[in-house]
């Protein structure tokens, strides 16, 4: 006759499955984990949004940890986020570099920044989305945190607000700023 104790095995397996499934409910498959964490920012040549004849490259961005914010005028969520980015720039002196992604009209982008404020140190113009593609961007807004050496440390896909900033982004950025190298 089969020992009673062996009946614990299916119970444990199913309990483990339940725990796993319960945890999976809080996963967000829409949020892809970036394949570029720990990788250097890809080499690129993009023009400055405000000065189309000037080329910007990786070298311009090295030297301090910064946020790389992917945005465009066609993206309504980016407009929602914009106010908070202004606060980060003005009140917390966060260095933000903009990536103007798949923008049809350079003028529209410039106008939007003039009207609503410009939180960006530089704005890279990426009308065909080539740099976005190399970064694994799949929508806007997206924000990368990059360290002084140009290595990508974090990617957040979505609108940055007070909560997201304090729980997810600020800790990473602070740690990078503390590191001297």
């Amino acid at each position, binding site marked *: 006759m*089969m020992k009673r104790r*062996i009946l614990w095995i299916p119970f444990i*397996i199913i309990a483990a499955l339940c725990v796993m499934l319960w945890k999976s409910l809080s996963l967000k498959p829409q949020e892809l984990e970036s394949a570029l964490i720990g990788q250097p920012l890809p080499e690129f040549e993009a023009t400055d949004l405000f000065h189309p004849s000037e080329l910007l490259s990786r070298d311009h961005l090295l030297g301090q940890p910064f946020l790389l914010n992917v945005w465009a005028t066609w993206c309504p969520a980016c407009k929602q986020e914009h106010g908070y980015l202004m606060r980060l720039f003005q009140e917390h002196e966060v260095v933000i570099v903009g990536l103007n992604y798949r923008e049809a009209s350079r003028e529209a982008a410039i106008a939007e920044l003039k009207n609503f404020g410009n939180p960006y140190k530089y704005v890279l113009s990426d009308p065909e989305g080539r740099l976005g593609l190399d970064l694994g961007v799949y929508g806007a807004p997206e924000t990368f945190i990059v360290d002084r050496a140009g290595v990508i440390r974090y990617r957040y896909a979505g609108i940055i607000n007070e909560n997201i900033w304090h729980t997810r982004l600020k800790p990473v950025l602070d740690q990078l700023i503390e590191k001297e190298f």
Partner: protein
Amino acid sequence: MLYLYRSLCVLLLLSASHCFAIDTFEFSTQDKKAQAIELAKTLRCPQCQNQNLVDSNSPIAKDLRNIVYQQIESGQSQEQVVAFMTQRYGEFILYEPQWSGKTVVLWLAPLLLMGLACPMLYLFLRSSFQKNRTIEHVSQEHLQKVEQLLLKKGDQ
């Protein structure tokens, strides 16, 4: 009548053209075209995540599709194209996860579970069959009592 015939033709052509978006990319050989399209179908659209690159109409799917076509056309291997995509978008872009440290659990888990469940099921069934067969060790005394009881019942 002719009008009906013509409009039917137009409808058929329109529906056929919607099969999948081949875009206007020109391939040099049929083989390359077939290979590129097949490959694009195994890649997930990062934005509309339940569609492959051929089915999806999103701008990013269009761009990635064109990159697949360009790379196959210029002679890159399937592995190289897949590496290009996974470097940027991660394993998730493949519908069929590659065999690696991270995904080996995904592949093996169903087999492991079956490997556990089947022997257990076998043991359980076997012991339950055995239970039904243990009628041998009844004593003669008991058998006689039962017979008498049955006979009694039969009389009433």
